[in-house]
């Protein structure tokens, strides 16, 4: 079985991670435009997007059916489908795969919800190791501000209300995001995440990303010729 870190596919996998409101999706969209303009075959894949699992997730969220364990496993199911359909085949075909959120999101959220740290990592052992995993680190208050001001209302699981830390959505969300950020910080060293300071300007962050990715693209050219 393919397990974490073992692949030798010709493609490259770049992922963005970070708390809600860290600006990672904006950065990935800019990167996507740039790579396409440069003529690379690019394939984009985002968290929670498997057509096989979508209906089950939606129903479970609406009816509050999840426990921390089933929340974790259904998201792993979704990720497995994406790995089998959207990530491995394009990588084998030599494409650049861009992923908005990856296994680190599961590690952060599921452990924040009380799942065993080692068990969650074992569940995702089939994942492909990214070429670079960018972690957009934003101070907690900035990220929370962006989310709370930018959306109509916090959703039940998004706010972590299932954990009953607080009855109040904003307070619960703040507690949840704090735990998530703690988990991300632990993972920087464990998985060699590339930290991007998300409090800087959008342009500065994008520039830094492109610098890092350019180096990997050069390797790609020299390998393919």
């Amino acid at each position, binding site marked *: *079985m393919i*397990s974490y870190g073992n692949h030798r596919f010709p493609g490259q996998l770049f992922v963005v991670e970070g708390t809600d409101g860290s600006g990672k999706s904006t950065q990935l969209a800019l990167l996507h435009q740039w790579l396409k303009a440069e003529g690379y075959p690019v394939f984009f894949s985002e968290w929670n997007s*498997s057509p*096989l*699992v979508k*209906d*089950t997730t939606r129903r*479970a969220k609406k009816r509050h*059916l*999840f*426990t*921390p*364990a*089933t929340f974790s*496993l*259904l998201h*792993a*199911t979704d990720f*497995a*489908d994406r*790995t*089998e*359909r959207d990530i491995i085949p394009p990588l084998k075909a030599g494409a650049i795969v861009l992923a908005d959120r990856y296994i680190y999101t599961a590690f952060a959220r599921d452990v924040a*919800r*009380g*799942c*065993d740290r*080692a*068990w969650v990592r*074992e*569940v995702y*052992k*089939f994942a492909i190791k990214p070429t670079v995993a960018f972690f957009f680190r934003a101070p907690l208050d900035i990220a929370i501000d962006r989310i709370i001001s930018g959306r109509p209302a916090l959703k039940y699981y998004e706010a972590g209300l299932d954990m009953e830390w607080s009855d109040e959505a904003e307070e619960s969300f703040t507690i949840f995001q704090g735990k998530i950020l703690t988990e991300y910080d632990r993972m920087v060293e464990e998985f060699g995440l590339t930290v991007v300071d998300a409090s800087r300007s959008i342009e500065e962050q994008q520039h830094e990303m492109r610098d890092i990715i350019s180096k990997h693209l050069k390797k790609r050219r020299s390998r393919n010729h």
Partner: protein
Amino acid sequence: MFYGTPLPGIEREEYSGKLIVLEGADGVGRSTHTALLRTWLEARGHAVLDTGMTRSVLAGRGIKEAKTGHTLGRLTMQLFYATDFVDRLENEMLPALRAGFIVLTDRYVYSAIARAEVRGLDPSWIRSLYGIALVPDAVFYLRVDSAQELVQRVLASGRRFDYWESGMDLHLGGDFYDSFIEYQSQMLKVFDRMSDEYGFQVLDASRSINRVAAVLRRAVARVIDKKPKVGGISHSSTETQTTSDLAVKPALAARADS
């Protein structure tokens, strides 16, 4: 008592109920015997919960829909089934066991593990995944010798060969029959191996329904009437359960590594 890491928020505790598993290949008679056992147990005055794969509120429907499309990859399938299993464990099996029910389950994690192994997934990965499973009080393995015998049962039932029961996703043979034989033969091999690993009580399922049912009733009665052990893991021991009808494989102690 769990095989590995217990679920978040689940205490290790003694349950007053009993968890009884019927395992075996497709078409071997598991659901028939589960139904017979249920009727018999209720007549004896026990409260019974019966459960089985894809019956969860959370994931049952989703799995069935995903399977009709035949686009379900092997990893995705495993994790979808694990989701289904955990939903039933947390919301049905554990509450029933706490309340003193006899929980009868038509298949348990062993079928999932066998399917994963036959599909070339890492055996240690699938076992860690199911480390969250409760160790049952007894596992009865309804065994037949060959895939040919299973074919006869499929024919007798009047059903068509099922895509997944024939392992068509593995491309093992040119048609449903060839694929079924090859796939089920591999499954039987894995089950036989697991029999030692997990201490299955093996029943010869090629005999008549009445005969198998009688053996099962006796064996289940022994599990239920057994006094709960003090301070520990209750595990079937070879001395007390061997009869000429029931081959008991030595039970490996469950891994209590966490």
